[in-house]
């Protein structure tokens, strides 16, 4: 199996709307989780899995030549779970078991519990190193897969991210792309108030990376940035895509909220959220 058939832009928008519904429903039913963190990354994961970017086969999740997507910001996993379910890795119904004892959909991704999850994450800062390991293994084995790792912007406070950035350039790894979900908020506030690491893009440039900055909710920009990154635009150079996003995107009363990190919404709020997204909530939140 090669690349899953790519959907057109309109179908991708519709898919994004569906993923947002899943995120609201599953986190509300779970009563905990990080819905706003998941909502900001929706277009990127939809483009990766349904836009013809990733090469994958849900019936053969450990296929050695698959492209990898590693979610380093593990708390965003409801978005990834929803995408994997829609892609056919497991039944969509299972999304409602999020965070329950015995469910493979744990609070943070567990690669040993759920096929399709490439790395167990949740302790921030580690995914880019793991991705670099996959990328170097591809080189050793003469395989041509590409590794995408998504990190959070708050996660970039972690020194390990920059250790990995340094090493990826040093080892001239160009089958590795880092996507920063730059939604501007971390647990206790705006990322620049918590730890002002600006100039951000210049930091990546200084570490030798090829930098693209995009609107992370504009599917055309997302697709073209991912395609460019996968084409290895500069030989021996890893690419970072800084995706400017909105925390809580798609639900008016969750957007740009600094106080909603790591909090699920209540049933009545979820009903309003689903209505805003154009979904009926009848039978969804039981």
């Amino acid at each position: 199996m090669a690349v899953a058939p790519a959907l057109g832009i309109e179908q991708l928008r519709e898919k994004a709307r569906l993923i947002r519904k899943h995120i609201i429903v599953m986190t509300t039913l779970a009563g905990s989780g990080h819905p706003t963190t998941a909502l900001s990354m929706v277009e990127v994961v939809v483009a990766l899995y349904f836009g013809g970017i990733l090469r994958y086969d849900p019936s053969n999740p450990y296929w050695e030549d698959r492209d990898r997507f590693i979610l380093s910001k593990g708390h965003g996993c409801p978005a990834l779970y929803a995408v994997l379910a829609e892609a056919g890795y497991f039944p969509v119904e299972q999304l409602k078991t999020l965070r329950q004892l015995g469910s493979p959909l744990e609070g943070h991704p567990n690669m040993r519990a759920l096929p399709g999850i490439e790395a167990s994450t949740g302790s921030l800062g580690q995914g880019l190193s793991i991705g670099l390991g996959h990328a170097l293994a591809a080189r050793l084995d003469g395989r041509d897969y590409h590794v995408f790792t998504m990190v959070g912007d708050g996660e970039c406070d972690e020194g390990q991210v920059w250790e990995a950035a340094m090493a990826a350039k040093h080892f001239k790894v160009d089958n590795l792309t880092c996507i920063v979900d730059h939604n501007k908020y971390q647990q206790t506030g705006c990322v620049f108030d918590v730890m002002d690491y600006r100039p951000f893009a210049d930091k990546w440039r200084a570490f030798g990376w090829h930098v693209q900055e995009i609107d992370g909710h504009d599917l055309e920009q997302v697709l073209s940035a991912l395609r460019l990154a996968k084409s290895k635009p500069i030989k021996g150079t890893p690419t970072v895509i800084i995706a400017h996003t909105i925390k809580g995107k798609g639900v008016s009363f969750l957007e740009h909220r600094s106080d909603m990190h790591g909090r699920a919404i209540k049933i009545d709020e979820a009903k309003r959220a689903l209505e805003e997204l154009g979904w009926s909530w009848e039978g969804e939140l039981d």
Partner: protein
Amino acid sequence: MELGRRIGLKLGLSTREAFGRALAELGEEVPNIVVIDGDVNNSTRTEHFAKRFPERFFNFGIAESNMVGVAGGMAACGKIPVVASFACFLMCNAFDQLRMSVAYPRMNVKLVGSHAGISIGQDGPSQMGVEDVALACALGGFVVIVPADEVETREAVRAAIYHNGPVYIRVGRPEVPIVYTDGCNFTIGKANKLRDGRDVTLIANGIMVAAALEAAHLLEQDGISARVLDMHTVKPIDAYAIEEAARDTGAIVVAEEHFAYGGLGSVVAMAAAERYPVPIGFVNLGDTYSRSGDPDDLLRYYGLTADNIAETAKRTIGRKR
């Protein structure tokens, strides 16, 4: 090194050198091995592997966190990464990466910490791994091995490579006496009985195995018969050998070049308490950091000697009911 000299043990290679040579040999046999070092390859002796297999060797610079994460990723792709650095830097600096990128996802990564214990000597406490065994034991699913000499190290490295799962091996800087002059039967999790005895069992690993053998000799001169167990694997511990020792000899002394809390002593005591409680004495580094100095001077200063093991054995025997 003075340990074992009184009973005629001859100095052999350092365990780090034995590790480096064994790894280079295994590189031929196991093509999936990749070696990752934190810019101390001439100290950990992964340089031997690097020379023979440069394309499978990666120096990640002085960045332990990243190199452990990379190892986790490589293992997910079927490689057998061997990650080496000083025991203290590897285990202390990269502990969360060992937890999240190796232990929790049960990655087939081998960690080798060199320059463990106070026997590195002059470089002092900042370079001494004295908490590494406790940290490694705390990681879920880890196998933890502390070999005694060059012969056992060679076998331990081979066993670790062929074991499917994370393994920590502790090796040291100085040349150490050869305990296994006639070869070594090495099985992960199975203690080696080096000498039998009736009155007390001396359980040791690493360089303290030579000291324990010497202590048994000293005790014999005082009419005390001591069994000596090389407890090379701290986890999973050989609880059967401990129970048997407790039943047969009624007293145990545990000797290790490590802090008191969480090392071999703690693990042995837990097994004995559950299976067959007997008085246990401990010879270790207590709870305080060491100093710089000549390795033999340090070992004497901190009581990691055959004499102290023998004295501790007598006191422990005196506590038998």
